[in-house]
């Protein structure tokens, strides 16, 4: 009986510790976000660093976004076509693929790709600087490391992800159009007219808003785990891993809440 009680207490303590750890982690991230807004509003505004990060997060992601966007659009066209043909609405393949891409697939897949690529890089770069005392060197010189390292990355991430998402949508639609009209023989005029009948600006806006939030959260998580790195190379690996995992989880979970909110207001 004593053994059962001890195990139960240990189990409850374990759960309590996990809850406390996660709540304090959430508190630290909230503080980090407040600190970001404080330092983003203060001069100097480091435009060169901002554009360097835009180039890294945006331009250098174009290849993988093109690849993912085109194949997603083509696959969606195929899948939708064979389902819709059963009920003779195959002419709606264009708008269905476009709306799916605009509202859901473009922002979410772009978010996941950027979390894996840029979120990991942010954590690894800042984490390496932390363990090699480069962050301390900035602070000793009187340069705020948050303002110098995190602010340009977070602003660039927040702006790049919606742009990449729109690019994903554009490429995805081209892929869907090519497969729909060339491989599946949907009439080109019908494809385009249905697309303009059913696709609205609000669909596009929903995706852009989502992508902006994803970009912000991915960059916050990437930089936060970079600054949290301790214990050398092992710590950098762990921080990078956590940045990718939590970045992706955040995109997927936030997607649900944003969808439930945005469908009511747009």
């Amino acid at each position, binding site marked *: 009986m004593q053994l059962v009680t001890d195990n139960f207490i240990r189990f409850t303590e374990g759960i309590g510790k996990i809850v406390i750890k996660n709540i304090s982690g959430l508190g630290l991230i909230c503080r980090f976000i407040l600190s970001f807004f404080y330092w983003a509003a203060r001069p100097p505004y480091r435009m060169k660093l901002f554009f360097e990060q835009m180039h890294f997060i945006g331009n250098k992601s174009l290849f993988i976004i093109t690849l993912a966007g085109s194949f997603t659009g083509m696959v969606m066209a195929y899948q939708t076509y064979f389902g819709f043909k059963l009920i003779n609405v195959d002419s709606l393949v264009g708008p269905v693929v476009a709306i799916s891409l605009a509202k859901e697939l473009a922002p979410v897949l772009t978010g996941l790709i950027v979390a894996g690529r840029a979120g990991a890089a942010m954590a690894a770069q800042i984490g*390496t*600087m932390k363990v*090699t*005392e*480069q962050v*301390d*060197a900035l*602070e*000793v*010189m*009187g*340069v*705020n490391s948050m303002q110098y390292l995190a602010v340009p990355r977070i602003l660039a991430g927040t702006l790049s992800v919606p742009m990449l998402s729109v690019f994903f949508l554009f490429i995805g639609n081209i892929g869907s159009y090519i497969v729909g009209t060339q491989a599946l023989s949907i009439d080109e005029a019908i494809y385009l007219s249905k697309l303009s009948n059913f696709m609205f600006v609000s669909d596009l806006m929903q995706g852009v808003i989502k992508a902006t939030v994803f970009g912000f959260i991915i960059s916050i998580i990437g930089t936060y785990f970079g600054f949290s790195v301790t214990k050398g190379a092992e710590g950098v690996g762990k921080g990078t891993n956590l940045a990718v995992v939590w970045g992706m989880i955040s995109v997927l979970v936030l997607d649900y809440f944003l969808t439930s909110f945005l469908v009511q207001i747009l």
Partner: protein
Amino acid sequence: MLSFENPAVGINDLTKTFGNHTVLNKLNFDIPRGKITTILGFSGAGKSTLLKHILGLHKPTSGQISVLGRDLSELEEVDMREFRQNFGMLFQYAALFDSMTTFGNVAFPLREFTDLNEDQIKEKCFHLLKSVGLEEVSYNKLPSELSGGMRKRVGLARALALSPKIMLYDEPTTGLDPITTKMVNDLIVETGQIHKENELTSIIISHDVKATLEISDYVAFLNRGNIVEYLPAKDFANSDHPLVKEFINL
């Protein structure tokens, strides 16, 4: 215990605790202006914590630190950042920005904190790099392409870029071969002499007893968060304190 008129750093009853662990315990300590003072001590004695307090990166749990006559507790965060321009620091592994070249590293504080144009920055960087004995061929190299000794030289040039009043050296010779160790020690002494007119104060955190006694004016021994011995370097080797004796004879 030694005390000085108008010290560069004055520490009064400084206590720092992390949770239940007391790292610095009612520490009283003056560091004189224009001299080389070394703080020796075993690992975990609180040397790095003391250094971070002098830099204003840590806030004391209790007690007071004044640097160049300014009480650090009275400085707001923004003023503190400006005040830190009085410091130059050479890190243990130089802490050079690995995305920048040698020149970029030395130019960084000048670009951040001065109104100098690029030509003036170039001229000043060349002068600084020459003064630490670096040849022009290494100016466009990345830190990964430099040897440990060269990195230290670049780190020192960067630390001196804004003409600091206090130079801090965090274990400057750890992990270096004997020749490079001598070179770094000579550089510390030369830097102090070159900047003598500015009353450059040098504070060294070290484990290296031999070098410490050769280059320092004063030596303090920190143990369990307190200074247990503080003497002119020439007298330090003859200290009667048992811990100091043990440390010197290790």
